[in-house]
C-alpha cells in the first residue's frame, strides 16, 4: 500500500518548493530500506540525538521501558538518564519543564503517551509554548517537539483513540504535523527538531506497525508546511492526512476502477502551517473536493480545508465541497461494531467519493 503512496509528484518549479525531500523520486525511494513507521521515528530520533547533544527526551516510561509503543527503545541505554528522562505521570509537568528547557537552549523532544492524555498539559502548550515568542519580543523561542500517538481503530475507546489535532491547529504559535508514511515521519521529525517553534508531532498509532515503506538514508528533510500529492488526477480530489491518507488512497482506487474517474489524492502531512497552495491548486484543477478527517467533524481540519477551498476556488468548483469525518459524539466507542460505525474508512470515503464524482 505504501509503495503506491510513495509515488510523490515531483513537478514543482518554484525554488522554495523544491526543498530537500520533496523531489525524492520513485527510483530513489525504491532503493531505500523498508521501515515501519515506529522504526523510522525511532531511528530518526536516535540519529538526531547522536548528532545534537542539545536534544533530550522526556516522558512517561520513555527511558528504561523504551516508551509505551517502544518508539524510544534503546535511547536510555545509549544516551543515559540525563538525556532520556523517565518522568512521573504528570503531563503538565512534562510539557512545562520541556518548555523551560527549550527556552534555555535545549531541544527537548517530549512524549505524551496518548493524545488523549495531553489535556492536562493544554495550559502549558496553548498558554505558554505557543505564545512565548510573541510575548517576549522575539527574544525567546520554544524549539520544542511534542511527539504524541493519536487516532483510533485499535479498540482503545474513550481515552486511547482521540484525534483532537484541530485544537492545536487553532492555536497560533504552534505547528502541527501528522506523517502518513515512514519516509515522511523521518523528514518531518528532522524538520520539527530543527524548527525554532513548538511542533506537535502526531504519530498515528494504528500505522506504527501496520505499514512499511522506503525511508531514504542520510539527511532527508520534509519542510513543514508542504503537502504531498499522493497521486495525480483530474476529475476529483480527496484531501486527507494521517491514517486517512491510506484509506483515501484505497477509496480512490476503488472508485476509479468503478467509474473510470481520475482522482487526485493529497496528503496534507502538515496541518499547521497548511499547504494552502497545493490544496487550492488541486481544487481548481479538479473542481470537486472531498476532505477527510478521522476527527469529529465540527471545526475539524476538514472544516478548515473546506472553508479555504470555498474562499479560494469557488469559481472553479463543479460540486459542493464535501467532508467525511467522525460523528459529533464524545468518544470512540469500545464495542467493535460501534467503533466501526464511528471510524472513517475506505468504504465510507468511497461512498462519498462516488456521490461527488457523479455530481
Amino acid at each position: 500500500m505504501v509503495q503506491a503512496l510513495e509515488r510523490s509528484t515531483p513537478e514543482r518549479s518554484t525554488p522554495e518548493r523544491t526543498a530537500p525531500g520533496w523531489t525524492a523520486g520513485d527510483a530513489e525511494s525504491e532503493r531505500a530500506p523498508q521501515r515501519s513507521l515506529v522504526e523510522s521515528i525511532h531511528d530518526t530520533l536516535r540519529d538526531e540525538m547522536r548528532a545534537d547533544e542539545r536534544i533530550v527526551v522526556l516522558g512517561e516510561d520513555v527511558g528504561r521501558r523504551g516508551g509505551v509503543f517502544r518508539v524510544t527503545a534503546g535511547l536510555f541505554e545509549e544516551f543515559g538518564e540525563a538525556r532520556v528522562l523517565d518522568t512521573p505521570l504528570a503531563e503538565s509537568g512534562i510539557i512545562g519543564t520541556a518548555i523551560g528547557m527549550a527556552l534555555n537552549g535545549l531541544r527537548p523532544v517530549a512524549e505524551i503517551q496518548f493524545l488523549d492524555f495531553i489535556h492536562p498539559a493544554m495550559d502549558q502548550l496553548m498558554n505558554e509554548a505557543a505564545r512565548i515568542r510573541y510575548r517576549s519580543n522575539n527574544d525567546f523561542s520554544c524549539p520544542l517537539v511534542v511527539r504524541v500517538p493519536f487516532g483510533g481503530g485499535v479498540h482503545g475507546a474513550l481515552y486511547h483513540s482521540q484525534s483532537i489535532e484541530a485544537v492545536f491547529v487553532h492555536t497560533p504559535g504552534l505547528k502541527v504535523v501528522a506523517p502518513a508514511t515512514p519516509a515522511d515521519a523521518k523528514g518531518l521529525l528532522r524538520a520539527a527538531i530543527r524548527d525554532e517553534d513548538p511542533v506537535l508531532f502526531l504519530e498515528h498509532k494504528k500505522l506504527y506497525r501496520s505499514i512499511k515503506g522506503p525511508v531514504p538514508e542520510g539527511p532527508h528533510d520534509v519542510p513543514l508546511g508542504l503537502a504531498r500529492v499522493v497521486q495525480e488526477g483530474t476529475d476529483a480530489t480527496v484531501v486527507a492526512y494521517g491514517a486517512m491518507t491510506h484509506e483515501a488512497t484505497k477509496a480512490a482506487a476503488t472508485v476509479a476502477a468503478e467509474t473510470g474517474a481520475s482522482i487526485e489524492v493529497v496528503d496534507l502531512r502538515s496541518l499547521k502551517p497548511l499547504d494552502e497552495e497545493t490544496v487550492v491548486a488541486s481544487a481548481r484543477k479538479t473542481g470537486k473536493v472531498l476532505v477527510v478527517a478521522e476527527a469529529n467533524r465540527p471545526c475539524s481540519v476538514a472544516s478548515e480545508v473546506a472553508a479555504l477551498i470555498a474562499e479560494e476556488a469557488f469559481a472553479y468548483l463543479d460540486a459542493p465541497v464535501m467532508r467525511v469525518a467522525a460523528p459529533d459524539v464524545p468518544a470512540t466507542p469500545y464495542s467493535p461494531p460501534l467503533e466501526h460505525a464511528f471510524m472513517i474508512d475506505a468504504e465510507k470515503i468511497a461512498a462519498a467519493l462516488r456521490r461527488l464524482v457523479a455530481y
Partner: protein
Amino acid sequence: MASSVSGTRLDNATALGWYRQIVMIRLFEEAAQRAFRQGKIGGYLHVYSGQEAVATGFLDAFRDGDKMLTAYRDHAHALILSDDPNAVMAELFGRGTGLVKGKGGSMHLFDAAHGMLGGYGIVGGHIPLGVGIAYALRYQQTDGIVHVYLGDGAIHNAAFHEAANLAGLWGREGLNPTLFILENNQYGMGTSVERATAMTDLGAKFDSYGIEHEKVDGMDLEAVLECAHRVTQRVRETGKPYAVEAMTYRLVPHGAGDFLERYRSKDEVRQWRERDPIGLVERKLLEAGVVDEQRLGEIRDEAKRIVDEAVRFADESPEPPLSELHTDVYADTAG
C-alpha cells in the same frame, strides 16, 4: 540591578541604594494606579505595594546568568532586573517603547536581556517552565539558578505540584537549582489561605517533594536580604531546589476592581501597615544613624523624579505600529 552593596545590613551608607529602590517601586505603583484611574492604563492592574521587600531582597542576590519568572504581580521584578522604569511604564501604557513593544501589558512583562523570563497571568503556569530552565542550566554546566516566584494562591495549582515534584526529583542529582520564593500575602485574590487549604503551613507543602524550606519575614528587608544571599548560594552550590515562604501582605486592593475588599477588615490592613516595609527600612536606617530625615526626603525626591520621568516617557511614547500584530508569531515572522 539593585545594588552591589556587600553584606545585607541596613547599617551603612550603601544601604541607601536599597531604600531608593524600595521607595521607587512604591511610587511607581502609585503612579501606575493614578494612570489607570486616568484611563491611560487599561485592562487589569495588580500592584506590588506592601511586598517590595521580597523582590528587592531576593533579586539583590540575583546574578548574571540567573533566570527569573514570576506571576502577574510583576512590576517590581521587572523594575529591578531591567533597571528601566521608562520601558516598564511604557509597557503598562501599551506603547511601542515598552519592554515588549506593548504586546504584553501589566501582567506580562518580559526582559530576556536581564534574565527576566516573564510575568505570567495564568496562576501557576510558569512554575514548570522555571524547573525546566533550571534543568537546562545544569545540563549546560553553568552555575546559574532560577528564581521562581509564586503566590500563596498558586501553590494549590496542579502545575505547582507536578513541577515541584520534578524539581525535587532532578535536584536529587544536583540537576535543579530552582529557588522557589513563595510570596504569601495571605490572600489568593480575595480568598484567605485558611479558606483555600486545610493545611495552612504552605512552606511545608514542599516537604512532599523533598525540597527543604524556611520562612522569612517578607516585610523586613534586612531579614530578606540575609536569607536571600544565604539560600541563593546554597542553591547555586548544590544544584538542589530550595523554598522560602516570605510572609508578606498586599497593602492595597488586589486589583483596580477590588476597592471594597469585602474579604478583609480595615483593622487587619491597619495592623499590617504598621509593618510597612518602607517604614521598617526608614526606622532601621535612622536608628543606625546612617541618615537623617532630610536625607531620606531627598532620596524619596530622587525616586519621585525617576517615576515622574517614566510616566512622562510612557505618555509621550508612540503606539506600536499595527504591523506588530503579525510579528513574532513564528521564527519566520520575527519582527
